[in-house]
């Protein structure tokens, strides 16, 4: 008798999911911000260093994923490795980074289309495209996994090929300094983390893979692909446009590289890639986060309102709430132009989460030594401990980085408010929700 699962995902999907979730459209602007901090052409080096450090975080996630493969991922691991309250606070903040990325991608999308199609206001593009994806999710229409797979590979392939074309066409490449990171190298590496952020969100798919090695292998291959593609992109960009500050004000670096590589065809190709990348970010983010809110409501951590399903079994209230918050944040960011706050906050939250993953590896090895682990981190406990300290430092640095020199570090204020709100909610509101919950018999909540 065959006892293996009838449907399992292949390694290819682990790679494309990991690469696709990390490859948001706002990464183009993050690459420019990294270049600004290193002062030019050595941005690729800061991105490569960030990628190398993230390999260690990837090893942590690989061990945790093998230890307890669950869609609830960090919610489970932190609960078992630290405690339930820390798990809830971390989960709330973590899921909010999904909203940050959706809002930031909406900003990039708006800027890109206001340049490509100037006749239509950017806010209309943002509202329309976010609305389309929300409607599709609301109706239970799913973008096939294969479409997302293809988009991830095409985006990374496009960045690599276009960047190589630009570099090949640029004369006198030897006059630039490629190895001088400058005094702000730590800030640059801290922000470079953002380009890889989200690679670990493939771990909630653990239940769909039969082979426990697929997710670790997929994450490491994806990290390599992202490092090559965005490293080359930043290199091509800074070689052609050496003044990072001027580049930052353009807000369409990917279109500039496309134009320089293949002329108008390259410009439009990158416009389409920006559209498909932002749409897959919206889709993946809303789908995952709305289910997460549903699970928290089922666990009586959020009000039961978030567990309400529509007739197509979609957690409609959670979906609409997320889409609404994302839209409001996107509009605020568009009107103020403060997209770097989202990049810096995202980089900070992700780095702190990577530090947490190191802590969890150590904590769970002590608490549950007998449980099987198909993957073990190297150099335990010294390497995870060092990585925990390093990622805390990078996270704090990213949060303290101001949008412009000498400015207010709004990211740390933004993060602080979210953290305090999450702590207050977990300590004051959750106990009331749990206490008031009664389990009635034969009562459904399908609206």
């Amino acid at each position, binding site marked *: *008798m*065959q*006892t*293996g*699962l*009838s*449907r399992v995902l292949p390694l290819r999907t682990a790679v494309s999911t990991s690469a696709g979730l990390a490859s948001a459209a706002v990464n183009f602007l993050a690459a420019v911000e990294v270049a600004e901090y290193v002062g030019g052409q050595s941005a690729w080096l800061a991105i490569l260093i960030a990628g190398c450090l993230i390999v260690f975080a990837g090893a942590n996630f690989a061990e945790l994923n093998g230890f*307890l*493969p*669950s*869609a*609830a991922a960090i*919610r*489970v*691991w932190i*609960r*078992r490795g630290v405690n339930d309250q820390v798990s809830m606070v971390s989960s709330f903040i973590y899921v909010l980074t999904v909203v940050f990325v959706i809002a930031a991608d909406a900003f990039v999308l708006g800027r890109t289309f206001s340049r490509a199609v100037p006749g239509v206001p950017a806010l209309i593009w943002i509202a329309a495209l976010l609305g389309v994806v929300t409607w599709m999710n609301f109706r239970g229409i799913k973008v096939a996994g294969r479409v997302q797979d293809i988009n991830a590979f095409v985006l990374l392939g496009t960045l690599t090929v276009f960047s190589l074309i630009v570099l090949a066409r640029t004369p006198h490449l030897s006059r630039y300094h490629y190895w001088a990171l400058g005094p702000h190298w730590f800030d640059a590496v801290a922000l470079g983390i953002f380009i890889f952020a989200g690679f670990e969100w493939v771990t909630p*798919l653990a*239940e*769909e893979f*039969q082979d426990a090695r697929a997710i670790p292998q997929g994450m490491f291959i994806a990290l390599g692909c992202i490092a090559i593609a965005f490293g080359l992109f930043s290199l091509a960009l800074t070689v052609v446009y050496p003044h990072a500050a001027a580049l930052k004000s353009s807000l369409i670096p990917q279109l500039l590289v496309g134009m320089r590589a293949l002329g108008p065809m390259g410009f439009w190709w990158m416009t389409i890639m920006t559209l498909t990348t932002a749409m897959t970010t919206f889709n993946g983010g809303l789908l995952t986060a709305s*289910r997460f809110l549903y*699970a928290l409501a*089922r*666990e*009586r951590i959020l009000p*039961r309102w978030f*567990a309400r*399903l529509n007739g197509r*079994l979609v957690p409609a209230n959670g979906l609409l709430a997320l889409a609404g918050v994302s839209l409001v944040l996107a509009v605020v960011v568009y009107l103020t132009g403060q997209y770097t706050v989202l990049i810096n906050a995202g980089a900070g939250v992700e780095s702190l989460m990577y530090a947490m993953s190191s802590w969890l590896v150590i904590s769970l090895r002590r608490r549950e030594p007998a449980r099987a682990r198909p993957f073990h981190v190297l150099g335990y406990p010294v390497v995870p401990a060092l990585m925990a300290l390093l990622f805390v430092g990078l996270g704090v640095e990213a949060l303290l980085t101001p949008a412009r020199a000498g400015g207010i570090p709004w990211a740390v204020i933004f993060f602080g408010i979210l953290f305090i709100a999450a702590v207050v909610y977990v300590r004051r509101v959750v106990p009331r929700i749990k206490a008031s*919950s009664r*389990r*009635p*018999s*034969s*009562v*459904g*909540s*399908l609206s």
Partner: protein
Amino acid sequence: MTLLEALEKFVSECNQNQRLREMNRDWTRRIQLEPEDTGDLHYLVSDAGLVSAGRGPVENPDMLIQAKEAILTAVFSGQMTPTEPYNAGELLVKGHQDDIMRLDILSLLIWGE
């Protein structure tokens, strides 16, 4: 209550509910339950909306659910939401996310929040 009794109760609730049968008419799945402590395999099968259960292995399953037998019994008898042990890492599932979500929704619609 034994696990088999809990499953039979769950099956009875599913099959008596016309709305659930309509909802699951396009859902044909084989679910293997693996109690970690006893190793006493059970199964649930949804065949175009009609659900059945029993003891023993099921061929070529679409989902595997692993937990202690007491937890599986509590979940399928409605004494506990699946999300509670799931988010505590005490209930592990292998299978497609849509199927996992569907099973949770069935539990929600039968036993409430």
